[in-house]
């Protein structure tokens, strides 16, 4: 009963409702405009909202997340440019549909299926999280160490150019997270006598630098973008279509939820896998795939929105982010003095149910905004990059400054921005770095607790990894992924690559 009361907080409070709506609407545009990303928007928003109450901040951020994952689909359909990585698969069939003059219908169907996927993901979150929590209480420090390693490893393997680059980025993030006073012994690490460094590297400045400034600098390379006008007519999809693709959407949502819940994998991979699955399980589509098959639109969109709910599962129950956006959201929770993990659901269940309710509300708004305002939308996304880039810089700088009114944080931001630019240019992903920064301190303290538990004896320490059932399972998973340098995932990655091509 209490859960239900907390679930409905944002449905009853007009201000929270407004924030969720505003976040969702803003998210649709952020996701849709190529060059703006959800990670960028959430990192900047955290700095602006950290003085707010936690519910208000979460309402806005959840809206942006939900809206942003969907928004990329619109530009994918209208311009053949996925506004966000999770919409790559949507462009395969969405753009051909638009070229045939069915852009409006494609957007309508996408919206309905995104919302459907979103609901499935959230339902899974509400059902699975309490189960995982009761299981996760038995987790040991070793297990957390392993979960952190697996999360960083997965982000590194599946998203970047090469495994080594992913591993480097993750380890670099961990190292950045180590700077400052050691929480266990209060010894300085990489502080060099500087009081500023004793407080650690300001991680919000790092996030904004890597996701905001670096991305803006990369975008300088493609300033000129031709825009194509599309005819928009009917937007509300046919009921027969919704009925026809119900089971496909259901299966895609299942894929999306599971992929989203794996630590380190997010909506983009979920969408590609669901697209591939739809392709294999639909032997006779009305229109061939790649030429405007509606199946090719329904599956990735249901999957990437379902992945949102999925991504919250490891974040809220284990404190392990499911992807880059949830890594940033974990940063937001830290700022508000909360510690995501198995105890969060036990100590602050109201926050969990509030989040679930809020995600549901954001999906309702997504349905409303998704089916309206398409004509204005086409005007706004024509906003040239030359205008966007300076604005991103201004917002990033003010956001970084606003956290502690500290001008030195802005220098950190610029420094990380420039480093991030080179890393991105040479094919490194910045996602694993942020994951490393967030998870590094947690992994360090868990490693040392496990080592102290083994009385500093390396043999006992290693034996513990295989002699306890949960640790054994996780160790096996980790070692399989690591040693083989991912032949375990080769069929998976090969399939993603094939679909991408």
């Amino acid at each position, binding site marked *: 009963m209490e859960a239900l009361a907390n679930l409905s907080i944002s449905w009853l409070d007009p201000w929270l409702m407004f924030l969720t709506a505003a976040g969702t609407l803003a998210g649709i545009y952020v996701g849709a405009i190529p060059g703006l990303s959800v990670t960028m928007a959430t990192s900047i928003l955290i700095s602006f909202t950290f003085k707010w109450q936690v519910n208000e901040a979460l309402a806005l951020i959840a809206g942006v997340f939900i809206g942003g994952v969907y928004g990329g689909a619109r530009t994918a359909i209208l311009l053949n440019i996925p506004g966000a990585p999770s919409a790559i698969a949507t462009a395969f069939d969405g753009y051909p549909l638009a070229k045939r003059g069915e852009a409006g219908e494609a957007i309508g169907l996408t919206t309905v299926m995104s919302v459907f996927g979103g609901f499935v993901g959230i339902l899974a979150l509400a059902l699975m999280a309490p189960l995982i929590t009761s299981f996760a209480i038995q987790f040991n420090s070793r297990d957390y160490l392993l979960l952190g390693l697996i999360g960083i490893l997965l982000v590194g393997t599946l998203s970047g150019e090469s495994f080594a*680059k992913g591993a*480097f980025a993750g380890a670099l993030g961990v*190292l950045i997270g180590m700077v400052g006073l050691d929480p266990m012994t209060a010894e300085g*690490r990489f502080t060099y006598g500087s009081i500023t460094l004793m407080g650690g590297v300001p991680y919000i400045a790092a996030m904004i630098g890597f996701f905001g400034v670096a991305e803006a600098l990369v975008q300088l390379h493609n300033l000129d973008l031709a825009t194509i006008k599309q005819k928009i007519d009917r937007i509300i999809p046919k009921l027969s279509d919704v009925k026809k693709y119900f089971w496909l959407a259901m299966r895609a949502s299942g894929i999306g939820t599971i992929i989203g819940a794996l630590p380190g994998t997010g909506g983009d991979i979920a969408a590609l896998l669901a697209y591939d699955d739809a392709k294999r399980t639909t032997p006779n589509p009305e229109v061939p795939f790649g030429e405007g098959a509606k199946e090719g639109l329904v599956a990735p969109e249901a999957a990437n929105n379902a992945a949102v709910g999925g991504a919250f599962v490891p974040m809220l129950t284990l404190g392990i982010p499911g992807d880059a956006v949830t890594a940033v959201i974990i940063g937001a929770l830290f700022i508000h003095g909360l510690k995501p993990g198995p105890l969060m659901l036990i100590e602050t269940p109201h926050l969990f149910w509030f989040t679930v309710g809020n995600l549901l509300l954001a999906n309702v708004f997504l349905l409303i905004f998704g089916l309206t305002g398409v004509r204005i939308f086409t005007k706004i996304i024509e906003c040239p990059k030359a205008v966007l880039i*300076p604005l991103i810089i201004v917002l990033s700088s003010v956001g970084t400054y606003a956290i502690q009114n500290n001008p030195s944080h802005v220098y950190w931001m610029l420094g990380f921005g*420039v480093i991030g630019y080179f890393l991105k240019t040479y*094919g490194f992903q910045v996602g694993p770095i942020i994951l490393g920064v967030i998870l*590094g301190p947690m992994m360090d303290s868990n490693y040392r607790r496990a080592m102290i538990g083994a009385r*500093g004896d390396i043999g006992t320490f290693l034996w513990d990894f295989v002699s306890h059932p949960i640790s054994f399972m996780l160790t096996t998973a980790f070692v399989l992924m690591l040693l083989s340098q991912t032949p375990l995932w080769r069929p998976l990655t090969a399939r993603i690559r094939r679909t991408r091509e």
Partner: protein
Amino acid sequence: MSGAQKESLRRPGEMVFSILLIVFSVTAFWQSYAISGLRGLSEPGVFPMLASATMLLSSLVIMRELMAKGSTSQDRQSSFLRDIVPLRLLVVVGFILAYVVAMPLIGFVFSSAVFLFASFWLLWRKGPVISAALTLASLAIVYIVFRMVFQVVLPGGSMIRGII
């Protein structure tokens, strides 16, 4: 994105970058060792050492992968300047640096106005009048949304205290 380039060729400057990564990893490892040495396995320096060792190992692998690729072109330096750090990028980074230095001195409003105007003019090439109009409009929106709605404390500027 950049990954879409021909995979068999090195990007300009990539080799130098990967050498820098190795140098950085070695330094990081040495500095991690300096924290607590090998006193024990649960000391504060152990995890940084593990992390920097991972960096070193992977940067060596990255180097090996790079060696297997073909070189980009003969005049590597010119294409590094053209493709990786074109003049436009350098100018924009210069603008940002000037902007973040100026912000605490002359305040958010003035520094942002100058920064936006200069960048719009440089990047959009629509002339000073349109750039100025756009600067005013976007600054007004940012100010209303963040100062009035979000109630963010924007940098005031120590040199012009009291004016804005």
